[in-house]
């Protein structure tokens, strides 16, 4: 009866509110004040070290019968691939699905399909991973399949040759895709061919990779000494540890965390437009930027606030101007690629061909603006801080989201109370900090401006802006001799 009484009272209260509304005309011009925010609830987790040296983190969440599992390897293609074998890590990851000592590729696929899930293996620049999500009932069985893929792969030649052919088709298709061209050219210009960040998977490296390369990569890379195993969801922490130890019992110790030493960056060139010709393109794809700071920069929070104001959101200055006010684009933005090395700062987007010059003028205007010529307003600063701080609870809404949040703390070496302290750190940022970090990390005199577009239409107008000289560049990012 207690529940029903409560409900009845509440219904009466609602009726009362509704009738008040009916009696007094509603003043719609008043923005409703928000209610009191909920206290931040950060997930908790336990950390232990397995006998083979791998770190294990378990975070329990029992509202749904779900588990997110991952093994994250510190260090990635930029640490473990040779320049002439770029792409070997991706092959090694894909080959884990091609068969084990007891299951061929089809048997692996069948087993995972019947478990209702899939194991994803992949490698990025500074890390690699094997992940799956499962119902809690299927967690142990799926983990067994993952363990088999990790410990007993056979790397059949036929699988490698098929993957190679498929990869070559993708690389060929990407030559017609402006965004893919920009993603290849921009880092090449920023970092050069001698820096891992400037190197790319090419038809040559894909053709050069042998089965021996793949096997050697796997043996050197997939080691527990650099691995974080994380289990998030509807599991008991002790039971999860037992399951992981059982499934990975035969994984021998070894492997170290890489040092993440990068070569010196090439000398910065004066601001230049690197134009990649794409005849007939309906839009010009812009990437403007320079190498940026590592994630551990003390300026991280100020940079986050600065970027929200500049180009991190819909109503940020870049998009508000170039899309909403001028109508040159469907969307432009900016961001920093944070990691252990000098990840890129990039501002860009797709611009209607005929407005390429005018858009470039506006990009440059906003970059100068954030460096001081357009003062940061109180409202911009407050909104940027609110946006950053108040989005945090939503990132803990799913088992996969929590897994990512915890893995980031481990991989980037953040303090254990990072999320608890986040709001206070953001709150400290001042307007002066915003301008200072913009000036420090966006070098207006040494920007790379990569534009993939229709040269016949845009070269003249771009030149006429007087913003920077133009260097013609091929789709691999090699600068052509002056013509």
């Amino acid at each position: 009866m207690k529940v029903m009484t409560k409900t009845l009272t509440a219904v009466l209260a609602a009726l009362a509110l509704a009738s008040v509304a009916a009696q007094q005309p509603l003043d719609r011009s008043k923005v409703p004040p928000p209610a009191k925010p909920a206290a931040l609830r950060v997930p908790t987790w336990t950390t232990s070290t397995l006998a083979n040296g791998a770190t294990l983190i378990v975070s329990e969440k029992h509202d749904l019968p779900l588990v997110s599992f991952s093994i994250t390897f510190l260090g990635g293609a930029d640490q473990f691939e040779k320049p002439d074998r770029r792409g070997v890590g991706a092959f090694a990851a894909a080959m884990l699905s091609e068969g084990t000592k007891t299951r061929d590729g089809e048997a692996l696929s069948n087993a995972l399909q019947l478990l209702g899930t899939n194991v994803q293996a992949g490698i990025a620049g500074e890390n690699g991973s094997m992940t799956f999500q499962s119902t809690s009932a299927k967690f142990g069985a799926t983990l067994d399949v993952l363990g088999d893929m990790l410990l007993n792969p056979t790397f059949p030649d036929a699988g490698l040759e098929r993957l190679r052919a498929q990869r070559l088709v993708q690389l060929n298709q990407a030559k017609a895709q402006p965004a893919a061209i920009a993603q290849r050219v921009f880092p090449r210009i920023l970092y050069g061919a001698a820096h891992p960040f400037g190197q790319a998977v090419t038809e040559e490296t894909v053709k050069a990779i042998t089965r021996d390369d793949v096997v050697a990569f796997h043996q050197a890379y997939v080691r527990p000494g650099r691995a974080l195993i994380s289990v998030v969801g509807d599991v008991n922490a002790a039971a999860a540890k037992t399951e992981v130890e059982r499934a990975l019992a035969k994984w021998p110790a070894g492997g170290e965390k890489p040092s993440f030493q990068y070569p010196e960056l090439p000398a910065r060139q004066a601001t230049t437009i690197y134009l990649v010709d794409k005849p007939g393109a309906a839009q010009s794809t812009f990437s403007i930027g320079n190498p940026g700071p590592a994630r551990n920069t003390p300026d991280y929070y100020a940079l986050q606030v600065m970027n929200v104001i500049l180009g991190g959101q819909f109503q940020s200055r870049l998009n508000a101007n170039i899309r909403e006010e001028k109508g040159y684009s469907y969307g432009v933005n900016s961001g920093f690629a944070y990691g252990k090395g000098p990840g890129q700062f990039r501002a860009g987007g797709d611009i209607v061909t005929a407005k390429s010059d005018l858009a470039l003028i506006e990009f440059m205007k906003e970059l100068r603006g954030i460096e001081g010529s357009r003062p940061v307003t109180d409202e911009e600063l407050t909104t940027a801080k609110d946006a950053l701080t108040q989005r945090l609870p939503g990132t803990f809404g799913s088992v996969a989201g929590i897994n990512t949040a915890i893995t980031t703390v481990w991989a980037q070496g953040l303090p254990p109370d990072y999320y608890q302290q986040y709001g206070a750190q953001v709150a400290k940022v001042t307007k002066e900090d915003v301008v200072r970090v913009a000036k420090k990390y966006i070098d207006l005199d040494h920007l790379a401006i990569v534009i993939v577009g229709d040269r016949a239409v845009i070269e003249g107008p771009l030149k006429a802006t007087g913003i920077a000289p133009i260097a013609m560049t091929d789709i691999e990012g090699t600068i052509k001799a002056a013509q």
Partner: protein
Amino acid sequence: MLIQPTRNRWLPRLVPLACLALLSTAAMQSDAIKIPFTTFTLPNGLTVILSVDHTTPTVAVEAWYHVGSKNELPGRTGFAHLFEHVMFTGSGHVPYGLHDKLTEGIGGSNNGTTNNDRTMYFETVPSNYLEDELWLEADRMGFLLDTLDVNKLNAQRDIVKNERRQSVDNQPYGRSGEIISKAMYPASHPYSWDVIGSMTDLSAASEDDVKNFFRLYYAPNNAFLAVVGDIDPVQTKAWVTKYFGDLPRGKAITRPAVSPVTLPAEQRLVFEDRVQIPRLYVAWPSVGEKSTDHFALELLGAIMSGPRTARLTKALVYDQQGAASVLTRQSSNEDVGEFTLVITPRPGHSLTDLEQAADAIIDRMKTEGPTAEELQKATAGEELRFVSGLQSDLGKAGRLADGAGYHGDPGYFKTEYEKSLAVTAADVKRVANQYLSHGRIVLSVVPMGKADQASKPADSKKVTDGDAQRPEAR
């Protein structure tokens, strides 16, 4: 094949309808398949669905309007999608920019999306801002026209053109969808024009045209409001009543009569595009949401392609190794649907050979039907997909609103799950025979000047740029 333009490419999109509809399963505990909800209807006709989930201090609000491009008239296309953009530019009591400030500016997000059948708007925010979101949604439902003028329309029209350039014109193979729609539906058919519409039509429209369209379709009696997450349902109902209660009911709406499409014969087309590698598209008219056959067609799609054991993937990509990739899928709109096959060849393999090889595999499926194991594999992941979806307030709001809007039942997700469960091997075999017939579109997209790389080039009609490209793209 059915594009769903959105306001903003950075923000998350909802799961496409066809994926939501793929809620099939094998022998699942149906007690995992639940989203608790309550529903009520205001006197002005607004249907409201509330669902409580306190797991995360966030809330999703979705305003779902039963209007899409099919409600437009020939010569006046693109309105539904244009409104999706205009709806973010302020309304009677909400100045431009405030909507974004009260969503992304407080740690949340917003977006909108339009298809042939419906337009929806959604916000996910910290739950203490719920009243603000209801105030925002009510204001643009009730007072959008107070501040709408030609300048605002023109500004958004430019952005929509950019959206089209980015998602269609500047993408390799980007025109395939509109070429297929144009070939599949007669010109008078409400599904024949693109959701993104004709810029010529939009330019020609008078202010009155535009305002009348809004008054008719953006009325509370044509809308569904789902509020999901960390909410107090009693307080939420009071707020909904406060902000939406006095908005006037609109006029009665006549929905377009949509006749099913059958193609009397195969139509073969070739289109030259700025691509490196040719690609084959085969599209059969099938059924939409309203026909239960779409469940079996979705399973057929999952059995034919995807994992390496799927029929076409295994044959073309793994065993014969003529294809780099194969995709099959059923796309279900409200009234009509399409079953599509896409093949990307490996070098040295012609589209003609690949089409023939694919047809042989499809014919075998028509004769044999799927095995019990194939059905089991194709449905085994559905419980995980459903339960995983329960982690998202927005995902749940989408399911509840789709059910209410298309089927008159917010709880339709459960029916859907059960109907998928009930699909048999005989059903899959039957729909393969019934819908994957000779009446189909076969489109080869080939590199410029390489029409000879089409499948059966001598039998394929060239699609010229003028045929393919609608006026707005020029």
